[in-house]
């Protein structure tokens, strides 16, 4: 599977994402610097976690205005699968590729811990390897993961079954509305999620439940 990872100044889980894509999807991803204007034709474009531009102004806001985004929009038109994790999710909402916004955690503190996720929609290229309703552990590490969308938007998302992952078993770490941990765009080719599947993919991590995201993409490719 061919993939590309977009890299912004301040991205810091880019290496984690690169490792995951390399080890689980069989090919080293192409790295695309934020100032480049073209992203090569690939099966998946990943926006990694981190603190692009220090998360200054609003998390993901400045990165969402960088030159490479223009071509990301073009790829979106084409229907290329786009995965945003953590800061990547924040960038995708700031860029308007996903609805809603990620606000400061309800507890106000940065939170790093392992939570339980429920696979709510497993008929997507990002989640097909999970069983419907499957509950699995996944780490989170963020300061602004509190998902918000206005009532109308939220209803549209729920009605069209575009919540892919929810925080399960009262493990919502940030106050996200409807326990939303990951959502899909209308067209079904863009997913953003706050948790870090790339940090739970080998025995060393104490589990491999995060592999499903990547093996799903591999199968979809």
């Amino acid at each position, binding site marked *: 599977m061919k993939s590309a990872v977009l890299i912004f100044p301040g991205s810091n889980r880019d290496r984690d994402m690169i490792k995951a894509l390399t080890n689980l999807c069989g090919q080293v991803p192409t790295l695309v610097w934020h100032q480049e204007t073209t992203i090569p034709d690939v099966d998946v474009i990943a926006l990694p976690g981190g603190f692009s531009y220090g998360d200054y*102004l*609003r998390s993901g*806001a*400045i990165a969402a*205005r960088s030159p490479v985004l223009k071509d990301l929009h073009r790829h979106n038109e084409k229907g290329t699968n786009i995965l945003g994790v953590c800061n990547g999710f924040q960038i995708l909402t*700031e860029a308007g590729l996903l609805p*809603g*916004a990620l*606000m*400061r*955690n*309800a507890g*106000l503190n940065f939170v790093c811990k392992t939570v339980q996720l429920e696979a709510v929609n497993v008929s997507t290229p990002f989640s097909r390897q999970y069983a419907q309703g499957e509950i699995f552990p996944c780490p989170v590490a963020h300061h602004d993961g*509190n998902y*918000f969308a*206005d009532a109308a938007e939220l209803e549209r998302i729920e009605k069209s079954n575009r919540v892919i992952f929810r925080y399960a078993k009262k493990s919502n770490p940030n*106050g996200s509305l409807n326990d939303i941990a990951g959502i899909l765009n209308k067209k079904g080719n863009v997913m953003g999620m706050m948790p870090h599947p790339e940090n739970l993919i080998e025995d060393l991590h104490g589990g491999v439940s995060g592999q499903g995201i990547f093996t799903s993409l591999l199968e979809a490719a």
Partner: protein
Amino acid sequence: MKARVTVTLKNGVLDPQGNAIEGSLEALSFQGVRSVRQGKVFDVELDTDNADEAREALTAMCERLLANTVIEDFEISL
């Protein structure tokens, strides 16, 4: 010229920071605080001294970057 841009959350948009501050103020036994909403200000220094130009430029900056119009409103004062 100097300008100040104020960006505040739209009504109905939840404000974790504002809520937390309400809580702490209460805990610090400040009475009579009905609500707190947190926003941002940007003090911007511009080359131009033409108010219309400035306002136009700042409006564009807000729409393009300084405010997330999905959840925020902005106001400009020169």
